[in-house]
C-alpha cells in the first residue's frame, strides 16, 4: 500500500519448503515475462533506429541518446552543442516533483504526527480517512481537481462569494496547479511512513528534553525529527518518485506550457511525433534516475538502521 518493497521481516517457518519452487513458479514466470523482459527490451529498443509512424528498424543506433543530449543543427551537419530542450524538461520535472514533495511534507508531517498521537483505537480510523481518496481513480481525482480549480469553478465562486477576492484567481495551467495535483495524487505516501515512525517513537525522550528545559519546538527539531527521519525520508521518496514520471497531473492541470517527462514519453508513442527509440531512451534515463534515488535511499536507511542499533 505504501509503494515500498514488501516487508521481508516477520517470523518465517519452513512448513512448505519442499513445495516452494512450485509455489513461486507462477509469480516468477509472469513477472519475468511481463515485467523484467519488457524493461530489458526497452533498453534494446533505445539503441535501435526509428521507423516513421511508430515502431523500430532493427539497426543499431545511438541516434536516440544523441538527440536527447546534443543539438547538431537542422540538417545534422553542424558541430554538436548541448541540447537543452530535453534536459530542461527533466529539470522542470525534478523541480515540480520536488515542490510537490515539499508541499506534501509541510501538510503531511503535522497530519501524520497528529494521527500518531491520537488514542490507539482512533488511529486506524484517521489513517483510513487519509487513504480513502488514494484509492479513488487517479484520473477522476485529477479531473475533479481541474473542475474545482477552474476560473469559473466552485473554488473561485466560493472565494468571490465570501468576498476574499474580487475577480477569479487563475490557477489552472500554472506550475502551482501541477504541484497541487501531484500533492493530491500522492499525499498518503507521505503520511503513512511518517505516521509509522512517530507511532514507534518513544515519547519519554521528549519528556526528558522537557525536563531539561527544552522548549516544545526545540524538542521537535532536535529530538523527535532525528528519531523519525527514516520515515520522513521514505515519505519524501514515495512522493517524489511517482511525481517525477507522472502524466495525468501535468497533462490535465498544467496545459501545454508545463510539459513534464511523462508527457514527453507519451508523445513519442501516442502522438504524431512518434519516435519509439527516443521514447525508450527517455524512459531509460528516467528509470536510471529513479534507480539512483532508490539505491541512495536504501543505503541511507541501512546506515540509519545501524546507527539506531
Amino acid at each position, binding site marked *: 500500500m505504501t509503494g515500498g518493497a*514488501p516487508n521481508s521481516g516477520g517470523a518465517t517457518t519452513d512448513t512448505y519448503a519442499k513445495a*516452494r519452487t512450485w509455489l513461486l513458479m507462477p509469480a*516468477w514466470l509472469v513477472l519475468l515475462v511481463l515485467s523484467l523482459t519488457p524493461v530489458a527490451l526497452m533498453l534494446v529498443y533505445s539503441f535501435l533506429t526509428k521507423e516513421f509512424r511508430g515502431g523500430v528498424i532493427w539497426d543499431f543506433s545511438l541516434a536516440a541518446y544523441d538527440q536527447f543530449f546534443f543539438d547538431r543543427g537542422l540538417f545534422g551537419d553542424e558541430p554538436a552543442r548541448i541540447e537543452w530542450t530535453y534536459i530542461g524538461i527533466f529539470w522542470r520535472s525534478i523541480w515540480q516533483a520536488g515542490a510537490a514533495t515539499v508541499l506534501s511534507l509541510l501538510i503531511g508531517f503535522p497530519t501524520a504526527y497528529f494521527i500518531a498521537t491520537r488514542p490507539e483505537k482512533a488511529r486506524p480510523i484517521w489513517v483510513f480517512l487519509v487513504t480513502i481518496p488514494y484509492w479513488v481513480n487517479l*484520473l477522476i481525482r485529477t479531473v475533479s481537481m*481541474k473542475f*474545482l480549480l477552474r476560473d469559473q469553478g466552485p473554488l473561485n465562486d466560493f472565494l468571490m462569494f465570501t468576498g476574499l477576492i474580487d475577480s477569479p484567481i487563475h490557477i489552472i495551467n500554472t506550475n502551482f496547479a501541477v504541484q497541487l495535483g501531484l500533492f493530491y495524487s500522492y499525499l498518503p505516501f507521505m503520511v503513512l511512513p511518517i505516521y509509522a515512525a512517530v507511532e514507534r517513537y518513544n515519547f519519554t525522550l521528549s519528556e526528558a528534553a522537557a525536563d531539561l528545559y527544552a522548549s516544545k519546538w526545540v524538542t521537535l527539531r532536535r529530538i523527535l525529527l532525528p528519531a523519525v527521519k527514516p520515515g520522513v525520508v521514505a515519505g519524501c521518496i514515495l512522493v517524489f518518485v511517482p511525481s517525477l514520471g507522472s502524466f*495525468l497531473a501535468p497533462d490535465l492541470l498544467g496545459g501545454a506550457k508545463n510539459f513534464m517527462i511523462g508527457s514527453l514519453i507519451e508523445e513519442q508513442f501516442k502522438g504524431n511525433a512518434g519516435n519509439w527509440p527516443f521514447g525508450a531512451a527517455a*524512459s531509460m534515463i528516467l528509470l536510471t534516475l529513479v534507480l539512483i534515488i532508490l539505491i541512495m535511499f536504501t543505503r541511507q536507511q541501512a546506515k540509519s538502521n545501524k546507527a539506531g542499533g
Partner: protein
Amino acid sequence: MASRSYDIKSYTGFKFITLACLVILYAPLVVVTIYSFNASKSITVWEGLSLRWYVDVFVGPESEKFKLAAMNSFVIAIIAATVSTTIATLAATAVVRGGNFRLRTASLGLISLPLMVPEIVTAVATLIFFNAIGFDRGLMTILMAHIAFCIPFAYLPISARMQGIEDTYEQAAMDLYATKRQAFTRILLPLMMPGIISGFLLAFIVSLDDFIITNFVKGAGVETLPTAIFGAVKQGIKPNIMAISTMLLGLSVIMVTISYFISKSDNTK
C-alpha cells in the same frame, strides 16, 4: 504526569493542518459528486437537483460507448484480480512459510518490481514487449499487463496477513496426521481469507483504475472506462462524465471500506 505527557505531545496548529488536509483531500470529490446531480446542461450554473445525467449515462447518445468500456473494464478487473491474487497467495506461502532460501530476496525484489519502476516506464516497456513479439494489441494485452501490475498490490495484504498467523495451527493439524496439503487448504487458507479478500479487492481497484498502462497497450478502438473518460475530458468536462466519475468513485470507496473492515477482522482468535 498524565496531563503533562499529553501536553508534550500536542503542537498548536497540527490539528488545524490535519483538518485542512482532509478538506483538501475530499473537497474535489465532494464538489464533483454534488455537481453530478446538477440539472443544468452547463457545468458552471447550478439549476437544482436532478438525476438527469445518470439517466443520460445509461440511455443517452454516448451510453453504448460507455457500456462497452465499463464491460471491458469489469471483465479485465475481475480476471486480473483473480489471477494475480492466486499467484500472490502461492508466492506468499513460499516466501513466508518456505524457510530461508537463496532466491527469497530475489523473489521479493521481482514481486515489488512493478511498484518501483515508474508507471509510465512500465507502460512503455510493456508496449515495446508486445511489439517485439508481434502480439496484436487489444483486450488480451491489457489483461496480461494488468495481471503483472496487480501482483504486488495483492501480495502486500496477503503476506502481511500470513506473517500474523502463527504456524501452531498448521502444526497441530499435522500432529493429528493431516497432510501438508490438508494443513494448507483446511487450516492456513481459511485463516488467510481476510488477507486474500483484501488483496483481491485492492488488485481489482488497481486494475479498474489504471489509465497509463492501459492507454499504452490497448489496441485502436478498444476502450476501458478510464481511457474513455480521458478521451471525453480532452473535449472538456461534461456533466455525464461527472455522473460516471461519481459512480466509479462510490464503487472505489465502498470496496476500500469493505477491504478495511475485512482486514481488521481477526479470525485467528
